[in-house]
């Protein structure tokens, strides 16, 4: 279990998430890794919201148990007191909650959050800041970490807001320092600060990656869990010379992105499975017209509207096969915030180079959880793949869809002299003219598909995390990587050697390397956050290997590391 696991709970509208992120950042600045996990229902006010922060030297995922519970209402205690470890503590608003139970050596720290909030001159909502202040004190960290974060967070909202929040936090901090300070057993100490650490979500990292990759056009339609990405792009559009369009629907969004890309701007859209359903037809058009476009698909619990604010990995097969007919495509499923950044840059480059649509598949757990990451290496030069006017001038009889060896044909864009062509959703010849001649049809299909051959060499190999020598090889993708990594560390402590085969690129699929790793593994276990084992099916289809041990979870929640570790032990015991 991490050094400290903190959880704040209350009604929607209480500023739970905001508080959680600030607490996480303060701990990060104190030299720790953090994982911030949010749970909220699909309504705007009144439902029960929580935010959990796990703090440790290394931490990858949410925790099953907590040490420090912050209850802004009584419901939080009812629901979460049972998750407290021995010697855990409850901070509760003594103005709002009558008292907390004391089983299992649970300490309770009543703090007049409402009164202190009022004293700070803020609205009732700044209770959350008082609570963070108190939390930091119990955690044993200096107030300066929090102060710095608060200044940065609220700077944009003006001096008054900054100071109200600071006062509130300080009041909480001081109240806590004055009461029961040394009673709390899970104090952490600040460590040498690394200035190289970020705390961010998958959405955030994709947004930064997209901007870095030269995304110039973004059209989207709000949908959990990628609304935050949409907001991020919108907020930064002007600054980075991007056109952001809040489309009328997803069909408009993707068709606009394809139009913009065709005309020469790197383009992107983002949606969840329901919105992607509406993009399916245009996705195929991008494939047929060889127009690059990047689509972020953030999955939530399906099918259909499902559970908008909960997680699942149920759309893998869907995005792999969406749209009629066959065309080359890229599907990448990063597993943490860093990968979200680097894969986004990579996928933008590949999509443009190979002139294929590309999907970045993330799940709501990855899209919306905050996690620590090394600062990204952002120095990379982004290569452009569109013909220059001079190059085009030197070409005679330009054929946009020439039957090139690699399948990649040099690409002009509208406005260029000598580069006229038809981007045609009908099957076509090298110029883009409609053609139903069987030879042309076959050759054009082969030309397009040929791109997959060099593409598969260019994408990175799947990663084997941990030592080659392991008793068991876990297989996971997307955010399941996170509890799997945590589980490996847990198991190591018990002397069980496990490693993890993480698959990011789903299409094209690096079957050879994956087959080799799996065939060499002493034992295998695949964990997926879905009901049918979609990656397991894909692996069997591509390699023939049937992974007999499947751990599937599909109740809207990502695995706890313990669940994976327990299953490993069970599998190894069975051997």
């Amino acid at each position, binding site marked *: 279990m991490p050094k400290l696991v903190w959880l704040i709970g209350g009604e929607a509208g209480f500023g739970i998430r905001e508080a959680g992120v600030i607490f996480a950042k303060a701990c990060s600045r104190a030299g720790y890794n953090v994982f911030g996990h949010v749970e909220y229902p699909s309504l705007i006010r009144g439902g029960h919201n929580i935010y959990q922060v796990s703090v440790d030297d290394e931490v990858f995922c949410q925790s099953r148990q907590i040490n420090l519970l912050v209850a802004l209402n009584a419901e939080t205690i009812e629901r979460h007191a049972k998750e407290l470890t021995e010697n855990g503590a409850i901070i509760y608003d003594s103005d709002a909650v009558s008292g907390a139970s004391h089983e299992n050596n649970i300490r309770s720290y009543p703090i007049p959050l409402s009164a202190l909030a009022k004293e700070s001159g803020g609205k009732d909502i700044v209770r959350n800041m008082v609570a963070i202040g108190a939390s930091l004190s119990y955690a044993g960290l200096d107030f300066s970490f929090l102060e710095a974060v608060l200044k940065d967070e609220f700077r944009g909202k003006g001096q008054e807001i900054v100071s109200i929040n600071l006062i509130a936090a300080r009041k909480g901090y001081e109240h806590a320092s004055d009461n029961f300070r040394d009673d709390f057993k899970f104090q952490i100490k600040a460590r040498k600060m690394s200035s190289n650490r970020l705390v*961010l979500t998958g959405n955030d990292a994709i947004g930064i990656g997209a901007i870095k990759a030269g995304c110039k056009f973004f059209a989207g339609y709000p949908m959990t869990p990628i609304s935050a990405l949409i907001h991020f792009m919108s907020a930064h559009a002007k600054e980075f010379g991007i*056109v952001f369009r809040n489309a009328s629907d997803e069909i408009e969004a993707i068709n*606009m992105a394809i139009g913009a890309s065709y*005309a020469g701007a790197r383009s992107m859209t983002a949606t969840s499975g329901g919105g992607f359903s509406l993009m399916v037809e245009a996705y195929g058009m991008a494939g047929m017209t060889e127009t690059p476009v990047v689509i972020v698909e953030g999955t939530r619990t399906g099918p259909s509207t499902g559970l908008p604010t909960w997680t699942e990995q149920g759309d893998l097969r869907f995005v792999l096969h969406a749209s009629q007919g066959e065309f080359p495509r890229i599907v990448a499923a990063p597993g943490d915030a860093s990968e979200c950044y680097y894969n986004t840059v990579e996928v933008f480059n590949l999509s443009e180079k190979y002139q294929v649509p590309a999907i970045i598949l993330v799940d709501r757990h990855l899209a919306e959880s905050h996690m620590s990451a090394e600062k990204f290496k952002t120095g990379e030069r982004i290569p452009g793949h569109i013909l220059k006017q001079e190059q085009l001038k030197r070409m005679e009889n330009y054929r946009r869809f020439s039957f090139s060896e690699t399948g990649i044909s040099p690409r002009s864009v509208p*406005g260029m002299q000598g580069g006229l062509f038809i981007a045609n*959703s009908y099957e076509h010849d090298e110029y883009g*003219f409609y053609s139903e001649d069987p030879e042309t049809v076959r050759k054009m299909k082969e030309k397009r598909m040929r791109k997959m051959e060099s593409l598969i060499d260019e994408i990175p190999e799947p990663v084997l995390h941990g030592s080659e020598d392991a008793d068991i090889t876990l297989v996971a993708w997307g955010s399941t990587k996170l509890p799997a990594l945590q589980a490996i560390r847990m198991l190591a402590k018990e002397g069980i050697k496990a490693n993890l085969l993480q698959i990011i690129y789903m299409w094209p699929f690096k079957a050879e390397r994956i087959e080799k790793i799996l065939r060499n593994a002493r034992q295998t276990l695949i964990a997926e956050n879905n009901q049918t084992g979609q990656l397991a099916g894909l692996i069997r289809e591509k390699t023939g290997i049937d992974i007999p041990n499947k751990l599937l979870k599909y109740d809207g929640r990502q695995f706890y590391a313990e669940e994976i570790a327990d299953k490993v032990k069970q599998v190894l015991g069975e051997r």
Partner: protein
Amino acid sequence: MKIEDFDLGTQARWCPGCADFNIWVTVRQALIELNIQPHELLAVYGIGCHGHMANMLKCYGFESLHGRSLPVAFGAKLANRNLNVIAVAGDGDCYGEGMSHFINTARTNADIALIVHNNMVYGLTTGQASPTSAKGYKSKVTPDGVFDVPVNPIALAISAGATFVSRAFAGNIPHLKQMIAEAIKHRGFALVDVLQPCITYNKINTYEFYYKRVYRLQDENFDTGDKMKAMEKAFEWGDRIPIGIFYREERETYEESFPQLKEKSLFEQGISNVNVDRLMEEFV
């Protein structure tokens, strides 16, 4: 520039005598009049007989999906605001499958000229009733006649906030040319709803039908700045059918609203070296 400069020299894919030919000829005439070069023009097509023009009109062409010419055109215009962008659509395409784009793109006032080949029938799929088919129109999918009232593109475009709303008749080429040229020139979203006889399937809305009925609004000294007058004319459909400009208004275009497009089009902005280090600061 001559009319052949816009001719790809391919074999036409329309029925001999189809009014789509007239539109094709007329679009080229208008382009010459406006002195637009083939490479400066992007034409985005829907799927239908109208879309066959993609293989015939020399310019940058995008034969998109049934119903989707507008959003593709809109995206392209935003990426490169220097392009002349036209969308060529069908009545099924634009007022059925693409209805939402029609209304929602009109609202933005993006600088796109939309030319709808309105033959009141699904031509390419062999003559089914379309959203503009008259009530009672019989076809393979409406053996007892259409039950719905037809879409009124003019009234909808005005209601949606289009800044240039016009109708033309493919049997009157000089007038059609004028409408197309005006629409392309117009700064903002411009509709030319073209009454286009489908000689193969539509036995009601024929050349004859229109020759007898159409009259030009300009001949009546019509005030194109009066929305309510325009609405009244939009509902006139019977012994007399008005063609011409129903409504025109000047409003900032969508592209003009973006400060980030003032200097350079998106296409012209550099991508090789975007500095995102500042962005990371938000996440410390």
